[in-house]
């Protein structure tokens, strides 16, 4: 059945043209056509269908019909049409390769878990100071998940509820994991000032987004949230998560192999000294400037 790539020297085999597929299609169409017009059309269609099936069958079996075609095309030279100026020597750094190193996916998960635990501490302190119960913040978070808790009193929220614990664990745990993964993915992209990025910029941005969206996501949280303490717990999350993430070893991506040997061998100790100068792999560098 593999006739795909025959030798070049005695012409190429291509399947020979045949009308049978068209006749078969016509036959089947006429059979259906007869259903809306008259039985005679269907009968004609059936005859055509059978004839075409037999004809097609004899085309393919026992051997597929072929015709030989002589190769008569000239060679097509392949070159770039953009050759107005001589091409600069290929610089190893002309291609942007991102990223050379990255974190493993587990790094983000670890960071998320650590940050999630750290975030709970300021939240518990806030609950204890303001409402004299460490469960208040937890219940407040969980309240977004239960319609019946929408109008709950402060006293109710200060008590321990198993449903509240489970709901808060799911909400908090999932969010922490996702944000942790995001940190693992994003921190290598912003290598400068990791503490500022991870510990302050990201939490403040996140708080800003949440501030505008919280009224829709969880109205009860919106009424009672204490933004000062919220920011503090966000920063706790950011600092710990960022710290844990940055503690982990980076792994080299497959792109690392494409680096010049000197970098790979460690002659340039710091990868960042070797930032690619040209931002793209545009092949227009050979056009006149």
């Amino acid at each position, binding site marked *: 059945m593999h006739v*795909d*790539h025959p030798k*070049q020297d005695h012409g*190429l085999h*291509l*399947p*020979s*043209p*045949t*009308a*049978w*597929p*068209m006749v*078969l*299609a*016509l036959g*089947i*169409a006429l059979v*259906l*056509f007869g*259903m*809306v*017009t008259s039985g005679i059309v269907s009968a004609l269609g059936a005859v055509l269908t059978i004839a075409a099936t037999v004809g*097609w069958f004899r*085309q*393919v079996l026992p051997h597929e019909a072929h015709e030989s*075609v*002589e*190769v*008569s*095309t*000239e060679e*097509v030279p*392949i*070159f*770039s*049409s*953009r050759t107005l100026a001589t091409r600069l*020597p*290929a610089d190893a750094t*002309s*291609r942007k*390769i991102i990223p050379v190193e990255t974190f493993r996916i587990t790094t983000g998960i670890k960071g998320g878990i650590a940050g999630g635990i750290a975030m709970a501490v300021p939240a518990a302190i806030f609950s204890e100071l303001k409402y004299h119960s460490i469960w208040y913040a937890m219940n407040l978070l969980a309240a977004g998940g239960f319609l019946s808790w929408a109008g709950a009193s402060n006293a109710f929220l200060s008590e321990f509820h198993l449903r509240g614990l489970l709901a808060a664990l799911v909400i908090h745990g999932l969010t922490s994991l996702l944000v942790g993964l995001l940190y693992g993915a994003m921190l290598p992209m912003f290598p400068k000032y990791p503490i500022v990025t991870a510990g302050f910029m990201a939490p403040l941005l996140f708080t800003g987004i949440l501030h505008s969206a919280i009224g829709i996501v969880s109205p009860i949280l919106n009424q009672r949230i204490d933004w000062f303490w919220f920011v503090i717990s966000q920063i706790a999350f950011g600092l710990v998560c960022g710290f844990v993430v940055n503690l982990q070893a980076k792994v*080299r991506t*497959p*792109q*690392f*192999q*494409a680096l010049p040997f000197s970098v*790979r061998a460690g002659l340039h100790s710091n990868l960042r000294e070797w930032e690619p100068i040209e*931002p*793209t*792999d*545009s*092949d*227009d560098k050979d056009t006149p400037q």
Partner: protein
Amino acid sequence: MATQTPAIETHNAAASKPSRPLWLEVLHGWVTTVDHKKIGLMYIGYALFFLVVAGFEALLMRIQLAVPNNHFVSPQVFNGLFTVHGTTMVFFVGMPILFGFGNYLIPLMIGARDMAFPRLNAFSFWISAFGGILLYYSYIGGSGLYGAGSAPDVGWFAYAPLTSRVFSPGHSTDYWTLAVLLSGVGTIGTALNIVATTISMRCPGMKMSRLPLLVWLYLVTSCMTFVAVGPLTAAQIMLMLDRYAGSHFFDTQAGGSAVLWMHFFWIFGHPEVYILVLPAFAFANEIIPVFSRKAIFGYPAMVAASVGIGFISLGVWAHHMFTVGLGPGANTFFVLATMVISVPTGIKIFNWLATLWGGKIHFTVSMLFAIGFLFQFLVAGLTGIMLSVAPFDWQLGNSYFVVAHFHYVLVGAILFMLFSAFYYWYPKVTGRMLSEHLGKWHFWLFVIGFHLTFDFMHIPGLLGMPRRIYTYEADRGWMIWNMIVSSGAAIQAVATLLFVFNMVWSYFKGAVAGADPWDAWTLEWSTTSPPPAYNFAKTPTVASRRPLWDLKHPEDPDSNYETEQHLPRSSQEESL
């Protein structure tokens, strides 16, 4: 072979020159051909013909709706117009034209001589073509509710129980069913062929991880076709049984369910939207990098997003049925599933933007259409998210807002990308360039017409104008908007005529293209324009995703950068 000018607009061209074969011989050649390029061109030509026909139907509807209390066409004719317009555009324009491009390009892009099953390919084309003829024969022979010559008038999704013998006597609905059935058979055949070709006919070195993204997306589309068109075929068989054998699938009098038809139809209907739009993405994946002079950004993410869209799109059908009242559980599920699908779609949009970013963008007509596609597809996606919210959908379901939304996808995204693809691959097919000057006129006129029509079509929808009404009262406040929409449609028609003129003019007078006019990177540009019957004299071998880049820049080949992702870590460490 290659010096022969190919025949697209064959017949007249062939007849005018004495040295050419006779008219009948040329016709015989086209009828009996099993060559994937000729079949692809027949698909495209046939789809373009129906595009003009169904576009004309749209114009008639827009004339009717331009002013209130209009009597340009009767309500009966109007019902037939929107049914046939929708059916034609989906089954006899969208699918054939996309499969036509796939047929033409896929073997060339993977370095194969033909499709895996060339005869099946011809059969699939002809059976789809006869389906289209059958549908339009109903205008002459169909005896419907209003006597002979009435077209199908049950809407393109033909809800039960309107389609039962009692409510749709005569044969007009049967014409619709049979035409769709035939087109479905052809579609499955072509999809099967594309999958088998992609899996089994790749040239040496063309691993799945090096497949051009166009081919990848066609693979996903084709796999979706099996699971989408299968249910449609099954539902059409049931409808036929109901109408001919007296069974009770959708007969509410005998305990049958009308909602079951909706489920079956939309299990096909929603993946169908993605079957149509993924090839448009496929063109964008080839065209945007070439005119940005950069490799595509995030190849693996693009593949993963496409496969993701394929899977998720199978689980969103009931968002077409929010107004039925599915209950809160089902509603919530389909709202969320519909929203989730915007994630892989978003990944794609960001990847295209990242490909443009920092590139040296060449604003050819092809690229202009591609950029128009990016913008309009985003807007269409945003109104899609709006409609995916069930309570919002309850307000606007079956209004002109919905019509505007899906036409934004079908015209703003798919048709724009198709135009882009025409400008990009026309030189490969004919050996001549399309006129860029005329093309710019075409682009700007079409953009203006498109936005006039479909931007303003949202507004009567928000004001409560339902779809499928043949006219309306003057005091509803819809008049001015409908007037703008209709005038935009006229501009689009002019632009399309310009495009058709450009195609014909350039075929005879266009600049000679050469093998590789765009300095592109995929294999189809390594052979002559037009390609010989055997595509490649010597089967190519490839070592990267951009084989022609490697040949053009031997000092800096892609293969240096595309390391094997699936190698075990230890062997990678060794090679460091």
